[in-house]
């Protein structure tokens, strides 16, 4: 772990949706971390004003790179710059990777249950990628709640993992607009129960999304009989 700020360079950018993109950052030295960790980015304006924001790592690209996915917020101070302005070759001040609780590594016992609301999928994607790369025999499920098909991050890769990895089930729930034949509506307790491993399987559960999403889903799972100690949550605010 790096305790101080260092300068990383944007080495690639890739659109995920109309309002979100993935930034690949290249560090001067080796950078390593575990799925679920985040980095802090610090931006400094011409007048010296500084803003620090945390972004989850979506992918580790050894030895010197990692990827973040940033979604533009309507009232955002930093995210519009990262999504619309920042270009390949630009530099950013970065601290981390940091965080040690909302993390998963393939040696953790128990089926892996991932539950994402919107851009909360980012750290869970790092976990899913790690699961696939390790050819883990642990069964894994991702329940991903999104507004519409146009809001899905990592669409192609999720399709491939879901089709090719027999250990992984990917379930996308649409709240506002769905592809033909798929139900539409806010995620319900019943839908979460139906999509998740049952409590008797003793899954380790990671939930990431807005505060309201995380708190509702975590409460439903505890109601269903899941041990609160096996549920880890991360709120991204809003």
């Amino acid at each position, binding site marked *: *772990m790096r*305790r101080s700020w260092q300068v990383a360079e944007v080495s690639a950018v890739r659109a995920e949706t109309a309002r979100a993109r993935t930034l690949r950052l290249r560090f001067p030295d080796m950078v390593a971390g575990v799925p679920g960790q985040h980095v802090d980015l610090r931006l400094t304006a011409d007048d010296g004003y500084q803003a620090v924001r945390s972004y989850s790592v979506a992918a580790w690209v050894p030895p010197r790179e990692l990827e973040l996915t940033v979604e533009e917020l309507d009232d955002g101070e930093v995210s519009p710059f990262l999504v619309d302005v920042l270009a390949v070759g630009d530099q950013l001040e970065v601290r981390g990777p940091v*965080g*040690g*609780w909302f993390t998963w590594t393939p040696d953790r016992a128990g089926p892996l249950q991932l539950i994402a609301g919107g851009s909360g999928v980012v750290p869970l994607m790092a976990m899913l990628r790690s699961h696939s790369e390790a050819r883990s025999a642990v069964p894994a499920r991702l329940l991903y709640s999104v507004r519409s098909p146009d809001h899905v991050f990592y669409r192609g890769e999720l399709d491939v993992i879901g089709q090719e990895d027999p250990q992984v089930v990917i379930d996308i729930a649409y709240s506002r607009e769905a592809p033909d034949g798929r139900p539409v509506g806010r995620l319900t307790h019943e839908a979460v129960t139906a999509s998740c491993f049952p409590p008797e399987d003793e899954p380790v559960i990671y939930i990431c999304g807005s505060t309201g999403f995380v708190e509702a889903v975590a409460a439903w799972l505890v109601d269903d009989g899941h041990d609160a100690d096996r549920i*880890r*949550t*991360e709120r991204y605010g809003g």
Partner: protein
Amino acid sequence: MDSTGQHPLDQDHLDGNALAGALDQFVSDLTSAECMCAGCGSSGPLAAALLYTKAPGMVLRCPTCTAVLLCLTDQGDRQVLTLDGVRHLVIDKP
């Protein structure tokens, strides 16, 4: 006082410098440390507590009773960490 005029507590001690190695482990990842709330006595990892950043500094509150656990304020080239609401932190060894 003993015969040398020193209080017994004044003898047989080192100073805080000798804590450096033992405290060094704390910088690995404090958010995983289990924190007991001094207000309600509930415990959980700092990562699961509620962080408010739209304040003069960062304020961490207990997820059970909402009491303030700690505040971290930036004062230019220094930071001030207050731990008024923390009874203890349990930190895994690396």
